[in-house]
């Protein structure tokens, strides 16, 4: 992979990314589907996707004050890969990221408008969220992990997507039955589904609803796991490089970048914290930009821009959130835990 001077990292990167995203989305859907199928539920490791995220490992282990070995191993593996290769998880693996990409591309692309993009410093909100998640974890709660992307998508698949397919299927079967075809009668079994699926659906709509304002809105501004990857990718070896003699300052890469990882004034400068390695900047022109392993001398790289005010904001939010959710009255009296 290293030192690919030729055509490799050019248009191939984007194709590799699309292929990777598709594969992981299919794998994810299959995993969630196979959860409920009898023998595979036990044998197929369908929870491996949820265990990939180092933030999940960190937060649950801090909150539970114990070492959860499978989480630790898989989380560490992803963390190490992120240190080496940057936010590859967001760009290549994350199934929620793929869903947001799809909705940005096909559902909300008409309403997207460059003018409406939030200011760039809003991207640091996610660090506030990250600190908040960690503070709440110190108090023994994993509550804010409802914001974890893989968790969100698993929940949506469980509570909304699969029930929808099921009920729609049984409704269709009922229609077919009314035509008098006996063989469809077995399909028409509609089982009750889930409480609160509307709440989960609302949550998911909020996640993708950022589309009209920005591409990958959730990943850029909110996602705590994205913030974690952003912090980890500070010294990643796999980076965007601009070939100085090939660049004519056309700034098409700046405009193409969905996460604004490229500086307007200085296109050689890349924010590794924001770069999800989608390769859109590379596929524009093959002579000026590439993704390569290794650090070039003089390459301009910006890490996660976490300032004191973000940490303080996160601490404040976390410390405020804990008494807030604990002061919530619960109708059913709770004797064993809070």
């Amino acid at each position, binding site marked *: 992979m290293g030192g690919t001077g030729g055509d490799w990292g050019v248009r191939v990167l984007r194709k590799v990314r699309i292929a990777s995203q598709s594969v992981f989305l299919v794998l994810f859907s299959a995993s*969630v589907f196979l*959860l*409920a199928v*009898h023998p595979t*539920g*036990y044998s197929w490791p*369908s*929870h491996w996707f*949820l*265990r990939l995220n180092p933030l*999940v490992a960190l*937060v*649950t282990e801090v*909150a*539970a*004050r114990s070492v*959860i070995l499978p*989480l630790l191993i898989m989380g560490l593996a992803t963390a190490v890969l992120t240190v080496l290769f940057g936010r590859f998880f967001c760009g290549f693996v994350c199934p929620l990221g793929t869903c947001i990409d799809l909705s940005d591309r096909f559902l909300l692309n008409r309403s997207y408008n460059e003018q409406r993009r939030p200011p760039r410093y809003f991207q640091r909100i996610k660090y506030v969220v990250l600190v908040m998640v960690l503070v709440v974890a110190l108090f*023994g*709660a*994993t*509550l804010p*992990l*409802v914001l*974890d992307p*893989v*968790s969100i998508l*698993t*929940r949506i*698949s*469980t*509570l909304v997507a*699969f029930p929808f397919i099921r009920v729609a299927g049984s409704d269709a079967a009922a229609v077919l039955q009314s035509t008098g075809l006996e063989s469809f009668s077995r399909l028409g079994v509609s*089982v*009750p*589904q*889930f*409480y*609160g*699926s509307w*709440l*989960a659906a609302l949550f998911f709509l909020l996640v993708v609803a950022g589309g009209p304002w920005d591409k990958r809105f959730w990943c850029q501004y909110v996602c705590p796991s994205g913030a974690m990857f952003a912090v980890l990718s500070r010294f990643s070896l796999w980076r965007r490089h601009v070939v100085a003699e090939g660049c004519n300052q056309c700034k098409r890469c700046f405009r193409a970048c969905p996460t604004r990882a490229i500086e307007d004034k200085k296109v050689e400068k890349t924010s590794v914290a924001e770069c999800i390695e989608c390769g859109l900047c590379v596929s524009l022109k093959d002579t000026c930009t590439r993704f390569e392993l290794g650090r070039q001398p003089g390459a301009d790289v910006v890490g996660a821009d976490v300032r004191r005010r973000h940490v303080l904001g996160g601490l404040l939010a976390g410390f405020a959130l804990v008494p*807030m*959710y*604990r002061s*919530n009255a*619960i*109708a*059913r009296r*709770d004797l*064993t*835990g*809070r």
Partner: protein
Amino acid sequence: MIRPPGAVPESEFLARCIACGACMKACPTRALQPCTIEDGAQRLFTPRLVPRVGACDDKCHLCGHVCPTGAIRALPLEEKKYVKVGTAVIDRHRCLSWQQNKECLVCDEVCPYNAIEARVVDTVKDRYKVPVVFEDYCTGCGLCEYHCPIADSAAIQVYRFGEKRLSRGEYLSARQKQMIQDRRTHSDAAHLSVEAPSAGFTSDAAAQSPAAPDAQAAPQSNLPSGFTP
């Protein structure tokens, strides 16, 4: 609120559960439902057992096996049979047998753990054959609540009292398990003798432990003789 079988103690549960919903997806009977806002903000989307929607199947222990963070323990099926998530309670004022003296023993018939017996007792109106719950054998699976023919909420409902939640280790000693298992397999005959269900059971228990002197003297005793939970 009832948690799935194998759920670790509540404070640890809240420290582990990431509300992903994998257990709810895996649950074949839809018994596991997400907590909504009325269970407290910190429990949002965490799993709870709602027997009226679906009961916990006695041959299934999938939820623990799909949990990514160990909030629900991956128990072997043999162990899961002894995990108590709650206790069924009959609402005598709504129960068809207890209140209206109608022939209904659905809860008794569906109970896979033999925790419900038919007994002839003095009800509010007449002496009648009614279902009685034996708390020590009930696991809180909720099959009775699921199948109860009363409209709206069932006349037999599972409450959380009696639940046992452990972070590690076995839920009961080998002796306790043996006693519960004996009871679950033995008194099936009592269900078949429609005429005098309590008599069949009592003689059965008495045959097992003839040393217990009060076995025949008190046939209405709520526990089989020789059993001290």
